[in-house]
């Protein structure tokens, strides 16, 4: 598990904006709970703060499930020349939190993981996480393509599960500091909007207006 690494990452990420917050909001109090995650207090209702503390203190997935999620997340978003992998960006910890936050994810995720293990037990006599890398990919190939013509009979529950974990992995990765940098989103900072840069405008066939 990369939970600790993820939390360290969050802490580092917060420093970049700390100066701004301190200069603008003398009454902001941010309390550190549970391994360093900041629960934002300013501008939030008491029930929201309380709810975050409760969710952060709870555990939903067990170790086996978290290990499986980490392997799947890195199959979905592996490291490449631009950025690290899903686990490098803390995606498993995000998934653990979001299923506590949005209960609608809980049964599909838990049941989907179990479905996957049962499939692998049938095929390889091992749960997914203990399969070889080649066996895991063989399994994933059967659930990663959701177009009706691509789905083998009986694989539908796996396809639905993989759609969900693909979505959560992508959201977790591209909303992390690593993922935002990878995407090249360069806003969220004071600047002056003067229109589309001239060369880009011309490339798309428009004139300045």
């Amino acid at each position, binding site marked *: 598990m990369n939970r600790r690494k993820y939390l360290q990452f969050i802490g580092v990420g917060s420093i970049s904006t700390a100066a701004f917050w301190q200069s603008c909001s003398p009454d902001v109090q941010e309390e550190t709970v549970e391994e360093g995650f900041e629960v934002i207090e300013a501008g939030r209702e008491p029930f929201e703060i309380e709810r975050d503390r409760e969710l952060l203190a709870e555990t939903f997935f067990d170790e086996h499930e978290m290990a499986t999620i980490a392997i799947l997340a890195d199959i979905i978003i592996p490291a490449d020349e631009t950025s690290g992998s899903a686990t490098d960006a803390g995606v498993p910890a995000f998934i653990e939190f979001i299923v506590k936050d949005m209960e609608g994810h809980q049964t599909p995720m838990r049941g989907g993981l179990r479905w996957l293990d049962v499939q692998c037990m049938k095929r390889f006599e091992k749960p997914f996480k203990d399969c070889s890398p080649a066996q895991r990919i063989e399994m994933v190939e059967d659930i990663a393509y959701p177009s009706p013509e691509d789905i083998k009979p009986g694989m539908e529950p796996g396809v639905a599960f993989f759609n969900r974990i693909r979505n959560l992995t*992508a959201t977790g990765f591209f909303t992390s500091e690593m993922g935002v940098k990878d995407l090249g989103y360069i806003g969220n900072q004071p600047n002056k909007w003067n229109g589309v840069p001239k060369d880009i405008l011309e490339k798309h066939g428009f004139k300045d207006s």
Partner: protein
Amino acid sequence: MGNFQIKKSPTVYDAVVVGSGAGGGMAGYVLANAGLKVLMLEAGPYWDPKTHSHQLRWPWESPRRGAGSTRPFGEFDAAYGGWDIEGQPYTHEGDTEFDWFRSQMLGGRTNHWGRISLRFGPRDFKGKSYDGIGEDWPISYEDVAPYYDKVDRLLGIYGSKEGWENEPDGIFLPPPKMRLHEHYIKKAAAKVKVPVFPGRGAVLTEKLPGNDDRQACFNCNQCARGCRVYGDFSSSSCLVIPAKKYNENFELICNAMVREVLTDSEGLATGVSYINKEDMQEYQVKAKVVVLAASACSTARIMLNSRSAQHENGIGNGSGLVGKYLHDSTGASLGGYLPELMDRKRFNEDGVGSVHIYSPWWIDNKKEGLDFPRGYHIEYWGGMQMPSYGFGFGIANINGPVPDGSGNTKAAGGYGPSLKNDYRRFFGSFLGMAGRGTGIARESNFCEIDPNVVDKFGIPVLRFNYKWSDHEILQAKHMQETFQEIMHQMGAEITWGIHDETTNWGLETPGRIIHEVGTTRMGDDPKKSVLNKWCQSHEVQNLFVADGGPIVQQGDKNCTWTILALAMRTAEYIVEKKKLFEI
């Protein structure tokens, strides 16, 4: 409850203003600046964008990455509350639908609104005279225009002068330039004869002359989170906080949930009673004038709950029309992606947090023989926006048919390096549009008191009864057709929002556009209206309404700028007539 008592303040205020949103904020600001002793009561907590906004937070600063688990518009959105507030229910008549967005906090819903600021035009005030539907206002555009002008100058608005009669120009700061997707939209819209104007929004694209409390917008696109430099209009930052800062005669009490308007033996208002949410004690305050600005429906609720021997059906409700003529804007939307915007070069195009462009209603319904009255305007969105929870969802629905650099397509969905690259390729290619149109005010659409249900404060709650008619449904159909035409002209792929008659063409549930107005409408005839043309009760001369309630009939325009103009007009009337109220 052993020590239950009502605490009565000995102070008699010149005016008590209930609510701190657009209408209450403006009324309180004008009355306080005129020297009146003003008490403002706000049902929610104190909230100042300078210290409470989530502006410039990154998604990774939150464990839920901005998801809307406790706030419908995402966790960094400024609005407390939402469609449901714990302990404060509302009910519905039969199978009718109405979704009610409440935000109990200083500044109310102006903290998170879209800042789109369109004046109602001459025809919006006199629609019945044109097509026979609904009701004309007792006042015309010319009556309100001077107040629109003053609101423009006081609060700041960007836009461009276009010279369209029913889309009146204001006193504008420069509008923001178009982003790349907006260039594509404008070009495609022109081909299907839909005009596109520069946006009109309550954002300071330049510093507001004469105002050193507010700074110019620095283009982070996050107005909805509240602006720490007050670069946009919120009632909290621009009206209530300055009213308090510059006037010793202005007092603000937060967490004060008003129960009812108090009256004397002659039926005149003497003040209000409220429960303080912090100590849960009951309070009464006295005032010579009562201004209700709790929001159209909350004001109706207070009036209907203010029953006495003189006002058996609720204060100022001799007409029986308090709560009637409730109407929200129509809304439908649709979106997709534009292949020309895939694999785009990155740059910062955040811009302002209101619209950079919009389309005003462009058709003469009679000349074109349309099968519905009135119209809608179109708002557009898109571009390289900051990722948050939901980013990348549904990629399997779109990444199959899109060819890669070598012209090859692959099975939709997938995993691994090529999927990872797809998210990058699609970033900034999504765009969409939403119609916001005129819903007709009808007596049969209303809110009333549910006699069987109270909230946790013991206050009887509202029951809604609302149904769209063919007027609104056919308008949504027209939106669908127009949006699809624009998308097709652009060469965009539509990925969501296509509807047919089985879903009313995507027409949103009443209330969803959060433009609900009309519950205390003004008029010359006391039998057919609640207020006179000064937003003053026909029956209780020291009772006024300063929110969206007095609006007789919406145009296809967002209502905030009109609420502000009417509230300013009403407050100036109170000041002018203050001797009448022994102020």
